[in-house]
């Protein structure tokens, strides 16, 4: 999956769950500070990402994803990793 496609899918997930229009989201948008996401919202976003990208994301890894860009980076790295296997 191309990075652009991963970005697009994550924007869709975040927009669906938080209700923020996609065009107001950027890679720099942070979940807690910018989107006021609570713990349930973050868990739901992570779960949707796991489902869409067919990967497991541990709670520790999820903790490190502060922004949409962090999520894109992490998921791309996992997808590249799984391709290599």
């Amino acid at each position, binding site marked *: 999956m191309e990075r652009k496609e991963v970005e697009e899918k994550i924007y869709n997930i975040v927009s669906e*769950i*938080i*209700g*923020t229009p996609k065009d107001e989201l950027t890679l720099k948008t942070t979940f807690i500070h910018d989107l006021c996401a609570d713990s349930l*919202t973050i*868990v*739901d976003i992570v*779960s949707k990402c*796991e*489902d869409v990208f067919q990967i497991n994301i541990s709670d520790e890894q999820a903790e490190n994803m502060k922004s949409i860009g962090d999520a894109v980076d992490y998921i791309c790295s996992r997808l590249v990793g799984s391709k290599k296997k």
Partner: protein
Amino acid sequence: MIGKRRVVITGLGAVTSLGVEVEEIWKNLLAQKSGISNITRFDASAYSAQIAGEIKNFDPSCSISKKDIYRLDLFSQYALCAADKAIQDTQFSLEKEDLTRFGVILGCGMGGMNEIEAQSDVMKQKGPKRVSAFSVPRLMINAISAEISIKYGLLGPNFITASACSSSAQAIGQALRSIQYNEADVVVTGGAEAVITPLSIAGFCSARALSQRNQEPQRASRPFDKERDGFVMGEGSAILVLEEWERAKARGAKIYAEIKGFGSTADAYHITQPSPEGQGAIRAIELALKDAQVSKEDVHYINAHGTSTLQNDKIETYAIKKVFQDQAYHIPVSSTKSMLGHLLGAAGAIEALVTTMSIFKQQIHSTANYENPDPECDLDYVAKNAREIKLGCALSNSFGFGGHNVCLVFCDIEKK
């Protein structure tokens, strides 16, 4: 001992299949319009009952942010929209109020059925890890009272009553007590329900509770008519804001009516059948009249539970006759369910709202589809047309699966 404080209704809001503004709903009921049609929410072709009072084109965004819509089951969306309208109707400036004196007491029969069914599908198809983190807060029955208190910062008593089809009448009764006995000055009360779902409709079909008049949706809910064959599922929310009378007067509030009495009993008989002699219903009505200190002669209208099931309508009629004797034949009785269907846990709330409007407007709506007299249902069911009447006090009856009986008494505020 200080006596009970008087309680009045100063705000109304509703979301129903006949509209989302109280005046619009009221006009539609007077015009005998039906909110019942074929089920579109899911493919009901395999069901014995394929009709319901669905709310079409509901737009929650007028009252709820996009973020919150995602977090809420449909029944909570209905409740929040109705509460928003009711609170606006009171013209409170909430920022100036002591919100520790504001409670929220609502009724609901079944809770977040849409969410239960959706997440059950997710779990079966994708496994337990894919079940949404929001599943529990969406489906829990107390979501509605919690969400309203969170949205408006209301800090007083806050809970849900669940007694099937009398749930929200029970809630209104508890809200009345809460103000009468000085636990709160204002209570947002009523109820919500949204169970036009595959599993829920299937369950009621299996219990043989629903009308199968699928070819004539608008003629299917026919309370007290000899050809009745079950109830029609409805959905929605109705919210009433109850306020201590002196306080409402002092701020010059619009007062719709006074709520004066509450009676609550159990049949202790059967989990779905009403007791054949209607003792539970009779005692509920008598207790409510005694609580209200209203004489039988002052009752000018009864908004019936009137489900359109064989048993309910027969036994409710019997109970009314037992309480009122010969006078029963002179009291008009009508059923809101004939047009909206049965809102289950929210039925008591919409019917309390309708009873309140009847007093405020001095008008009563008819029972739609009452055409064929049943010898066992021989009261004045307000056939054909709405009426203008002089209305001092009115009753609203609610009876639920499990044998939970509630009667509420509403009066014109001028009546001392």
